[in-house]
């Protein structure tokens, strides 16, 4: 049977090359997109994990505090504890490189401690003048300006032993000397190491460290140590396991990754629908052929297997192509946008494309599954057919007599509504995605019922063609299902993505406008890096002519050891602290509460928390909260909840005056400038450069910043846009091939119509009318389903994955144009393929009948 199968079934794929190619393409694209997302992230995560392992070494626990560090008095306390075997203090700094406008991860280490916990960070001295490893190698490392570069950093910066590197501290510069390498760092890790005391001195962090790595004494468990030592830590410092600490970043990127994977899955699903449509039509067209094969002895199971094999082969070839494409795309993505798909999660990593056999096999299997899934129903339909009846022509319409499936459709939609209620599982909105799938299913299942309901309600009309089209679709609503399934899927996907991204972009734009009230912004470096403005620098800028007022902003991080009474899970993860003027400036996009809480001596200090923070801390407006500032606990009251798209981990805003009073920290990261009326920003910018130094500050106008942020936004969603484009493309392909195949399968019917006196052009119009009507139903359902899916994406998926809200915006114009284009395209495709089908002699087409 196998050779018969090969010739009879697979040769038919070759015969309808166009449809086959398009199905292949659809599957290949779905597989390629999904696998690319996975490959990129697996490579990035791999590199990230390598970095984590490298930086954590053999640490059992890590004491972590605010970004700018905590008192190094904690270190001897921890080191002396009987539960601790080895302790190694670290000072991590993102050093701004003023002449390069980028940063370098710099780790200050205690040379005599680091070897016991994180030996990979041990520096290796090299003195180029002596052309041999320095004799006093390790002592050389203690010199205050000695810096050691990892191989990746050395290659990236183009610097070797003996070279100098300028780093920025505040608004000033320091020069460091490359004294050797960090041979233990992996090839993908860009970092530098120096002595911790030297780092404290160079970066003006005397007495501060950011981390203590602990190796516990034999027999002491992590939980015991956490319980014993936890109480002795100052507020704002938490003891985390290295896995917990790294899951901070991984958790953030996971939601993004899952989102993209789901989009790819939907693209693959659309491919499956395309296979379904083309296979179904092929089955219709080959009905007599199958009846004949059954007559000469092919049994039902063999027929079904043969047709499934057709789908499976489509899926396999499509899957193989998709996998190939995925590796190409991954290499391209690494070359063009880096390992984070533009989202900025994994800065400073240089991941490599790697062959992932299991992942590849999984996606290959998914491709095959899409092909088999698409072929399943058509194969079942073909096996069910009664050969004696199908041997005589004219019963094609039989296949299209689909039953309305209202009950199943409604059940799917009801289930989808229920799926919006449960919380995410492990931070992933599993039920949200399930709801999306269910909505899509319900929408497609409602197609035959909707057509059967809608067609008789169309005006009867006088025109014969209109009446014929209406009669056909009423009698054979299944035709709409075949033609419309792909339309519904791709329209729903495109529409939901368009609404979601449009709402998101609109909300971000609005958010930015409200967040940026000043005329000009000034900073010494990215807030996480080593540049800052001290009080004196701020005063100098404020005194410049043309500057009416300055608004300083200070960024820090907070660590809360307990969240809602629990010490597990995300407890200890960093949250952003933003100190700025709130009452005077406004500018916080609130979703609840007020910017003007009552003042007075007995009123607690107000804080405004972001939606994510409210979620994580389980706080509402008016609730009291204790936050560690300057290693002391302080009581606050939540005055409002605001929308923050920039910090998924959550953020807390307090008045900068309150912050300074509580911490004595007078540094400024960002400075908003209000200019006197009529002053142009350019001369002020020039004056600032003259005051602070040419390369030591960055200035930006709110308009530029807005453009920049939106560019980042668009880059982040580039992949999304791409997938959307692919979905539309697949949908268009699907419509084109489906209507072409429909016209071909109805060649005889068309021949008869021409016998009855219809002109070619009229038959073409008839086909175009039917196609437009089918597409209209598909597009209408697709629009509704797309709207519903967009709501789920906005209210469930985004809220659960990223914890942010957005205002619904409907891009009505583009959606309308898109819908009309789909309908028009369906009509054109049907018209063109009708002409093709009619090129065959009408007489010949009918004569085959008996």
């Amino acid at each position, binding site marked *: *049977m196998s*050779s*018969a199968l090969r*010739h*009879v079934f697979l*040769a*038919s794929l*070759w*015969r309808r090359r166009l449809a086959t190619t398009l199905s292949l393409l659809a599957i290949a694209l779905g597989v390629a997109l999904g696998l690319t997302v996975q490959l990129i992230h697996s490579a990035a995560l791999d590199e990230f994990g390598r970095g984590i392992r490298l930086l954590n070494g053999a640490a059992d626990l890590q004491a972590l505090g605010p970004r700018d560090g905590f008192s190094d008095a904690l270190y001897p306390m921890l080191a002396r504890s009987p539960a601790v075997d080895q302790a190694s203090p670290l000072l991590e700094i993102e050093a701004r490189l003023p002449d390069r406008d980028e940063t370098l991860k710099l780790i200050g280490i205690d040379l005599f401690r680091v070897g016991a916990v994180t030996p990979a960070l041990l520096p290796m001295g090299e003195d180029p003048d002596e052309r041999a490893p320095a004799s006093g190698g390790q002592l050389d490392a203690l010199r205050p300006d000695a810096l050691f570069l990892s191989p990746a950093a050395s290659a990236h910066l183009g610097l070797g032993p003996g070279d100098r590197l300028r780093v920025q501290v505040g608004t000033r510069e320091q020069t460091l000397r490359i004294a050797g390498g960090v041979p233990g760092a992996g090839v993908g890790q860009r970092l530098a190491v120096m002595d911790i005391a030297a780092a404290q001195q160079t970066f003006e962090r005397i007495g501060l460290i950011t981390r203590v790595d602990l190796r516990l004494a034999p027999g002491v468990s992590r939980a015991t140590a956490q319980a014993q030592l936890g109480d002795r830590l100052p507020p704002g410092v938490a003891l985390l396991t290295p896995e917990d600490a790294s899951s901070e970043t991984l958790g953030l990127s996971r939601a993004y990754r899952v989102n993209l994977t789901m989009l790819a899955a939907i693209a693959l699903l659309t491919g499956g629908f395309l296979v379904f449509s083309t296979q179904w039509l092929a089955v219709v067209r080959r009905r*007599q*052929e199958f009846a*004949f094969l*059954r*007559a*000469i*002895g*092919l*049994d*039902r*199971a063999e027929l079904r297997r043969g047709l499934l094999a057709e789908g499976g082969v489509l899926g396999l070839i499509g899957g193989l192509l998709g996998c190939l494409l995925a590796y190409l795309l991954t290499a391209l993505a690494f070359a063009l946008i880096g390992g984070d798909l533009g989202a900025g999660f994994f800065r400073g990593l240089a991941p490599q494309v790697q062959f992932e056999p299991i992942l590849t096999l999984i996606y290959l299997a998914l491709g095959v599954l899409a092909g088999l899934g698409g072929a399943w129903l058509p194969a079942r339909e073909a096996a069910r057919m009664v*050969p*004696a009846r199908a*041997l*005589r*022509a004219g019963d094609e319409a039989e296949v299209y007599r689909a039953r309305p499936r209202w009950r199943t459709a409604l059940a799917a939609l009801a289930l989808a509504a229920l799926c919006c209620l449960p919380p995410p599982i492990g931070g992933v909105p599993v039920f949200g995605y399930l709801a999306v799938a269910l909505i899509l299913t319900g929408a497609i299942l409602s197609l035959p019922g909707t057509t059967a309901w809608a067609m008789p309600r169309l005006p009867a009309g006088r025109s014969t063609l209109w009446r014929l089209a209406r009669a056909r679709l009423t009698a054979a609503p299944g035709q709409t299902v075949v033609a419309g399934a792909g339309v519904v899927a791709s329209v729903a996907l495109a529409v939901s993505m368009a609404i979601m991204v449009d709402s998101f972009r609109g909300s971000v734009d609005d958010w930015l406008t409200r967040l940026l009230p000043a005329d000009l912004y000034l900073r010494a470096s990215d807030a996480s890096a080593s540049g800052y403005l001290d009080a004196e620098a701020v005063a100098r800028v404020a005194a410049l002519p043309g500057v009416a007022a300055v608004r300083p902003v200070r960024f820090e991080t907070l660590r809360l050891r307990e969240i809602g009474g629990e010490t597990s899970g995300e407890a200890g993860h960093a949250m952003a602290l933003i100190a700025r003027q709130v009452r005077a400036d406004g500018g916080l996009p609130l979703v609840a509460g007020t910017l003007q809480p009552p003042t007075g001596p007995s009123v607690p200090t107000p804080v405004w928390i972001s939606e994510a923070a409210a979620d994580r801390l389980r706080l509402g407006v008016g609730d009291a909260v204790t936050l560690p500032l300057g290693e002391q606990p302080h009581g606050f009251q939540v005055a409002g909840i605001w929308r923050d798209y920039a910090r998924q981990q959550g953020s807390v805003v307090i008045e900068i005056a309150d912050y300074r009073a509580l911490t004595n920290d007078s540094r400024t990261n960002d400075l908003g400038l209000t200019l006197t009326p009529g002053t142009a920003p350019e001369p002020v910018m020039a004056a600032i450069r003259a005051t602070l130094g040419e390369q030591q500050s960055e200035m930006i106008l709110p308009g530029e910043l807005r453009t920049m942020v939106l560019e980042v936004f668009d880059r982040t969603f580039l992949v999304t846009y791409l997938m959307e484009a692919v979905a539309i493309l697949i949908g268009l392909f699907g419509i084109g091939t489906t209507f072409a195949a429909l016209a071909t399968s109805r060649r005889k019917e068309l021949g008869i119509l021409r016998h009855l006196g219809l002109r070619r052009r009229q038959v073409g119009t008839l086909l175009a009318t039917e196609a437009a009507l089918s597409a209209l139903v598909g597009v209408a359902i697709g629009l509704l389903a797309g709207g519903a899916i967009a709501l789920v994406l906005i209210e469930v998926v985004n809220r659960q994955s990223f914890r942010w809200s957005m205002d619904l915006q409907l891009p009505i114009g583009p959606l309308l144009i898109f819908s009309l284009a789909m309908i028009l395209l369906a009509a054109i495709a049907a018209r063109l393929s009708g002409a093709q089908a009619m090129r065959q002699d009408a007489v010949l087409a009918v*004569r*085959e*009948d*008996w």
Partner: protein
Amino acid sequence: MLAIENLRKRFDTAAEHPLFEGVSLTLAPGQSVAVMGESGVGKSTLLNCIAGLESVDGGRIRLRDQDLTALDEDGFAHLRRRDFGFVFQAFHLLPHLTLAQNVALPLWLLDQDDATADRRARAMLARVGLAARADDWPRHLSGGEMQRVAIARALVHEPALVLCDEPTGNLDPERATGVLGLLFERIQDAGAIAIMVTHSLAAAAHADRTLRLTPTGLVDATVAP
């Protein structure tokens, strides 16, 4: 030996009377009959019943002492691939297979290896006069040529029974005579039993006997030559 006894067929939709009943027929290997009758009397249905493509409501069909009416659907399918050959009015050549492949199809179904199947198919094509076109496609053939390919395909696996439903219905009379001559020659070569439904007296004359199907059974209608 094919023995049909008292066959009865009724479609659910048909009114009081069955389509036909009391149909009996016995044919020995090498024998052929032509079945005539008005349009709609059930000739095609009778062939379908014999081939197991349509269920029967009474009576028995035996082929070489095997009771066919007792077979299930797949059992019948497997019997058909071994013992049945079909020639249809509409040819039913598979458009995406070459002539040789079309003819080899029944051999593939019998699990013959590709080489043997190809050799036998080409030999059979040669016997219907189409050896030179073995690698051509069906769409390039005339109606008569297509039917010759269909004949080759019906006989290539040496079936015990050949069923022909208006094999010349789509051909002009001249072509029809040629094709029928060929068909019956090949059937005789193979020593097969043949039942041919036809409208044409000229066609019927190629068979040993002619019967007329009526709602109450088959009656002899052989015209003396």
